[in-house]
């Protein structure tokens, strides 16, 4: 954090939560300051977490291949209960995956905007067209 603040820090404005010197205040405007490296680490953590939820969700979907062992009352009752539990679990995984993914996207967007501005300031040139699909996946 010893770098010049205006070039190396990214300020995520959180209105009315922190004052600029870090002390807590419910009224005054303030900010969190992140270096570019901080932002990249945060993005990676959110993306990894989203990925982990996604893998769990795929495992849960695959487990739907397994059916109740028999058609007797106890087996069917247990399968029904397990399916309800499974559906809740999948809903939980999907919500968390979406939440983590959106957090990663938000931080990435903030970083991209900051870096685009910096790039434009330095070179005065446009970067690669941001709206065209990229090659590969």
């Amino acid at each position, binding site marked *: 954090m010893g770098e010049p603040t205006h070039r190396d820090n990214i300020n995520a404005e959180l209105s009315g939560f922190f004052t600029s010197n870090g002390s807590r205040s419910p009224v005054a405007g303030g900010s969190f300051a992140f270096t570019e490296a901080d932002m990249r680490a945060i993005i990676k953590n959110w993306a990894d977490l*989203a990925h982990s939820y996604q*893998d769990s969700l*795929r495992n*849960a*979907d*695959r487990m739907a*291949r*397994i059916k109740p062992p028999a058609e007797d009352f106890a087996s069917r009752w247990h399968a029904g209960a397990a399916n309800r539990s499974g559906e809740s679990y999948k809903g939980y995984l999907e919500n968390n995956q979406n939440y983590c993914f959106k957090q990663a996207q938000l931080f990435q967007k903030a970083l991209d905007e900051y870096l685009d501005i910096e790039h434009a300031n330095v070179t005065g040139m446009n970067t690669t067209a941001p709206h065209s699909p990229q090659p*590969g*996946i």
Partner: protein
Amino acid sequence: MVFRRSFLAASIIGLVFVSACTTISPGESQPVTSTATNSSRSSGGNGEELPFAGAPKVDDPLDTSRYEQDPCRALTADQTESLNLPRTGKTMENVALGVGCSWRNSDTWGEAEIVFIVGDPRGLSPEYESKTQGEFPDFEELPKIEEYPAITRKGPGENGDCTVVVGVADDMAFESNIQLSRDNIGKKEPCQVASQVAGLAIQTMKRGA
């Protein structure tokens, strides 16, 4: 009283015969390997005939046993590079019912996984069974991939992900799971990309690379 005694004697004799027929063999139980599973795949594990539940029959089964042992060989380095993914994959851990490999680009967030469902060697049949039971309302039959039937359980996810399941034999299916890179979300159709990745894997396996 005579009847009770003769009944007791008959029971004792019976027990002696039963215990005489029981032999105890020493040994250790061993898990069935996927290779062993391959050689004995003529029907599902419960004796059910494959395919069932309306799943299409695979006329020209593909031998995937070699890739089940090492799923990271299912895509070549050149193929993954063309997808903007790392040239080498990582074997996945804790895969339910399967073995798999993952190629993930942490810069773009793009990812492809190939998972062989070795823990349930019944091909696409259980997927069609789930469909008939309404478990996946967005289940969709896809166009054949390299002549093999394929489905998606629930179509594209809102974050640019999709799972395509390909039946390469009546008793073997594999998944192509993809996550689009963040720049391609909303610009490419995830299930088409997953089908493309599955096609590349089948080409590799047909060549035996």
